């Protein structure tokens, strides 16, 4: 079955942001990124200024996709939790509800145990939010209420007229 599109409204974004901003504090994290499994950045929080977030999102999705492929080779459905240890910073990556990727960047102000503990709770909250978003997207699609239903062929052609 082809994936349905993801439509995120401002109130959805605020709910997501609320969860990740709290997670930054609770886990003593440097930065947190919420990424769609297809590589789109959904939300971010923390102190990581200047990071190329578009690349981060795409590479995270590639990483999850590749290890997901590995998992299937050895008879697992997925490897939902990844941990990459660096000299200063570490990455904790969690796949939430098979669709959303939660990336936590942390240094020695935090610990893997603390991050794991806090991510578990936040992951559950994010799963619920994205379940709501999915249901809303499906209802909207049935009613034809996305921005695409309003655009005309001229709008599309104008995009390429310059």
């Amino acid at each position, binding site marked *: *079955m*082809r*994936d*349905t*599109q*993801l*439509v*995120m*409204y*401002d109130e*959805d*974004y*605020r709910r997501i942001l609320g969860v990740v901003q709290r997670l930054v504090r609770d886990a003593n994290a440097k930065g947190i990124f919420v990424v*769609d*499994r*297809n*590589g*789109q950045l*959904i939300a971010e929080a923390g102190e990581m200024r200047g990071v*190329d977030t*578009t*690349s981060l999102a*795409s*590479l995270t999705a*590639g990483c999850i*996709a*590749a290890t*997901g*492929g590995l998992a299937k080779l050895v008879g697992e459905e997925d490897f939902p939790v990844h941990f990459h240890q660096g000299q200063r910073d570490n990455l904790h990556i969690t796949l939430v509800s098979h669709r959303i990727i939660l990336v936590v960047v942390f240094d020695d102000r935090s610990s893997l145990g603390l991050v794991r503990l806090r991510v578990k709770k936040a992951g559950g909250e994010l799963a619920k939010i994205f379940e709501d978003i999915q249901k809303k997207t499906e209802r909207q*699609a049935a009613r*034809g*209420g*996305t*921005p*695409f*239903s*309003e*655009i005309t*062929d001229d*709008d*599309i*052609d*104008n*995009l*390429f007229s*310059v």
Partner: protein
Amino acid sequence: MSFINYSSREINCKIVYYGPGLCGKTTNLQWIYNKTNPELKGKMISLATETERTLFFDFLPLALGEIRGFKTRFHLYTVPGQVFYDASRKLILKGVDGVVFVADSQIERMEANVESVENLRANLAEQGYNMDRTPCVIQYNKRDLPNAAPLDEMKSLLNPTGLPEFEACATDGKGVFETLKAVARSVLRDLKQMSG
């Protein structure tokens, strides 16, 4: 799978460049990267081997402009073309909104082209996509080479259903942006149709 973000007023779509090994998929992206204004593009990422063959994917984020107040952003990916990287190709096709099939016009690569287009159809089907109903354009690349196959022959082999098609020479940019515009237009029309 497109992502519509009302909060940042953005529409994000994924386009995948597919085709046999060394057909010019990465060259297409490099040309687009080199010729696009810095404010409209992100960093281009190439996960390649030491000999610059694509190992996993190339990635280029691109902004095309606004539609009704929404910024349209396209994420361009290439797949590794070599036959044995099929597992990676399947992963990259996930969530795709549109496909560019880049064919190598050299006559000795015709079998590889046919094998790759069949592989594309099968891998799309595995993800739940029907290739005939997925936004897709064909690019006949390397038309400048002396051993290029006749266009009619390529069309009958690779494009029996009459998808939009373009001749190209990606190393000097001929046909590159025409191809990109066609697939982007096709993706947006498809999304409009899906929205009713």
